């Protein structure tokens, strides 16, 4: 059975979850609601078949709250120009997505994928009762919980900590790039590994002969022991994992090569690393990268354009390198931000924190095109765009249709997967 057929049966109601019936009816799935209800488990495993450990997702986190309205732009809507007196973009600044919508020119590499039917733009994505705190909203996106408690693990860690993704010798989840460790990659057993510079992967062994003996001693010092869950146990476990996984990453990096121009921005470096490791055959499934700087409260126009330029170039280069490595059929990219920004610009030629926004899913197996409805600027809630599609329906699609695993145990509730993958079907 094909993945999307399984999807069509996945109209399981969300009992006791944050999802509402309305959300299941959104996004063009309304016809499915009439289908009979099915048992919650069982059908999924049977329908989805094997778990796809050969597949990869690159999670691209646009941190700070990307201005979705000035990314996928409803330039034909007079309310748009009215809300954005200084920041508005005209059709000439944009690449066409539909008669009403345009994509920023800075994202031309993504637009090429859109035209090839390989970019899904999911509109109006968010969650109930939008929170305008960066940190709360990041927690919500990273844990897939509307009210995450302090111990809630990163949602994707619940995928990679299960077999067969977590099998020995694999690096199922890796952050590429510097900066703080995001909650998304912190699981029950600690943080997933992080690499920003390949030359920093080797353990410091010091000068002189006998380096191997010292490295072996470093490993023995980190052998586990002590009270489970204690700070020392945590440090030993993460140190040992860092030693092992750094060696795996270093080996993959040696084998892999890239040649595209990613630009000089950090996001380029992060995606270059991911491409190199994919090309080198790292046995992994999830790469997390982050681009900071989207919190554009003041003088947004230039800063935002620069961020999108860096992003577009880096994603274009990444795509080309992954194609060259012959791995493109196995790779998708999910690109999101913790919230969009207020529809009306503020007095500083910037925008304040908002709510729903579009997100991108990129890949050969992706059902390209526009998903969901264009933003309705005449139906704002507290000055913000309300969400029509819960982001967890995108997560559910990735889990069910791309990785072939049941989403509900990972997300903690049933969310109807959006039809995003399985292009052929």
């Amino acid at each position, binding site marked *: 059975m094909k993945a999307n057929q399984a999807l069509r049966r996945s109209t399981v109601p969300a009992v006791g979850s944050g999802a509402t019936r309305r959300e299941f009816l959104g996004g063009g799935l309304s016809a499915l609601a009439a289908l009979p209800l099915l048992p919650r488990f069982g059908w999924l495993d049977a329908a989805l078949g094997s778990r796809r450990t050969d597949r990869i997702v690159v999670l691209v986190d646009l941190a700070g709250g990307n201005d979705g309205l000035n990314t996928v732009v409803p330039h034909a809507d007079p309310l748009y120009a009215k809300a954005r007196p200084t920041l508005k973009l005209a059709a000439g600044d944009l690449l066409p997505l539909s008669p009403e919508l345009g994509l920023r020119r800075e994202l031309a590499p993504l637009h090429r994928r859109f035209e090839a039917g390989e970019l899904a733009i999911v509109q109006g994505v968010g969650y109930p009762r939008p929170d305008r705190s960066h940190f709360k909203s990041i927690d919500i996106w990273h844990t897939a919980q509307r009210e995450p408690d302090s111990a809630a693990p990163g949602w994707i860690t619940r995928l990679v900590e299960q077999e067969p993704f977590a099998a020995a010798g694999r690096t199922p989840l890796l*952050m590429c790039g510097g900066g703080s460790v995001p909650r998304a990659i912190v699981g029950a057993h600690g943080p997933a*590994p992080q690499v920003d510079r390949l030359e920093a992967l080797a353990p410091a062994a*010091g000068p002189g002969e006998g380096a191997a*003996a010292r490295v072996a001693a*470093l490993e023995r010092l980190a052998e586990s022991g002590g009270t489970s869950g204690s700070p*020392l146990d945590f440090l030993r476990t*993460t140190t040992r994992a860092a030693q092992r996984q750094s060696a795996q990453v270093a080996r993959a990096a040696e084998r892999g090569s890239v040649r595209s121009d990613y630009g000089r921005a950090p996001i380029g470096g992060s995606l270059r690393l991911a491409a190199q490791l994919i090309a080198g055959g790292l046995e992994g499934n999830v790469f997390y990268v982050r681009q*900071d700087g989207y919190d554009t409260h003041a003088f947004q126009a230039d800063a935002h354009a620069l961020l999108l330029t860096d992003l577009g170039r880096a994603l274009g280069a990444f795509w080309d390198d992954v194609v060259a490595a012959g791995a493109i059929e196995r790779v998708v990219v999910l690109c999101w931000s913790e919230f969009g920004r207020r529809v009306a610009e503020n007095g500083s030629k910037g925008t304040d924190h908002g709510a729903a926004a579009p997100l991108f899913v990129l890949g050969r197996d992706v059902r390209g095109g526009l998903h969901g409805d264009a933003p309705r600027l005449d139906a704002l809630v507290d000055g913000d765009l309300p969400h029509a599609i819960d982001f967890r329906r995108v997560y559910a699609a990735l889990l069910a249709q791309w990785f072939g695993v049941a989403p509900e145990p990972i997300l903690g509730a049933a969310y109807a997967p959006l039809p995003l993958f399985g292009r052929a079907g």
Partner: protein
Amino acid sequence: MNLAPYAVGRDGPFGPAEAAHLLRRAGFGAMPTERAAAVQAGLDATVERLVAPLFAAGAEGDEAARFAALGAGAAPNDELPALQGAWLGRMVHSRAPLAERLALFWHGHFATSIEKVRRGAAMWAQYELFRARGGGRFGELVGAVARDPAMVVWLDSESNEKTHPNENFSRELFELFTLGLSHYDEHDVKEAARCFTGWHLKDGRFWRNERAHDPARKRVLGRDGLQDGDEVIALAVEQPACAEFLGAKLLREFVTDAPSPEAVLEAAAALREERLELAPFLRRLLRSRLFFAAEQRRARIAAPVEWAVGLLRRTGSRVKWSALGRELGEMGQALFAPPNVKGWDGGRAWISSRTLLARGRFAASLAYGDPALGLAVDWDERLGAAAAGDGATLVAVLAERLVDGDLAASSRDELTAFADSADAGRGAERAARIAHLMLSAPEALLQ
């Protein structure tokens, strides 16, 4: 009863282990001789010596002046390394380490980054504000920070105008600086932003731009009639949630990554009793039962700055100050450039494979010497005859100096066996190798 005074004798001793704990948490750790002196002086006198500079900030010796000159005299194109080096130098040499520790806490609390502020002098002035007034009343500190030029730039107060309020500062004032989530709503954010309209800069200094100020009466946090930002700050600080928010954060900084709800309530009550004045509150906290409880010892992951500064103090190594900040950035704590306005999450969030490897590199650089960082320790001179002693002797002496004698038994065995093996080499090289391995043991990151 968490914050009741630790009664020496009845609750336990004040010996070398307790002195080491106190000096690690309230300073950056101490040499064996300093620990012995603290035991000799007793708990009260030691706490008093740590806290006293907070009541008389600015009464600092020549070292501070030397490093202030280094910070202020930085060339524009290498401002950040110079600023970082100047503060780190102060931390390493300070005779008022708690004042620096507290300034570091405030830097993480009111987290402001040079990445946006772009003016090194303003960043340095903000740090001087934290250091000079960090031990005072919290409300006064918030008021000063709201006027601080680096903060004004950082959270866009400059473009907060009557006609178009900018919510950036007012939101973070409630969420991150005073109350925490769920103690205010969007309406409060919007109305408070109006109160702060016109809090601008002129020639780089705070300036009330009356033409940009919205003088209308606003309703904030359930109270009507507020006009100005100072009224918002006063109102926020007197909320019960503020003392709890601040108390929890101070407990996490100085005592435990996971304070109990009861401890938070007690800390909040103590803060209120001290009218939110930090110095007397810290005096109580640092000599409390909770602080000295056995389960708090070596239970907190040291922040990179605390860890590295502690090692530089303990080893007396030379260092190229302007190169040090970048190394700390690799470990996850770039001073004057926190990741975002929330600051560093701290605790387990300090740890990733990347930051662990960076700490390992620093441990190796310190142990073996590193020309790029200017690091050099003369182990023969530091250790004397012990450098040539048997494995157990060398490990014991190094452990006293580097980790206050606290090593897991398994690590002690491993290091002793290594020191007695042919792999260890001889003389200073052997001492350096054992120091490197010891500092790379996971427990060496615990404070």
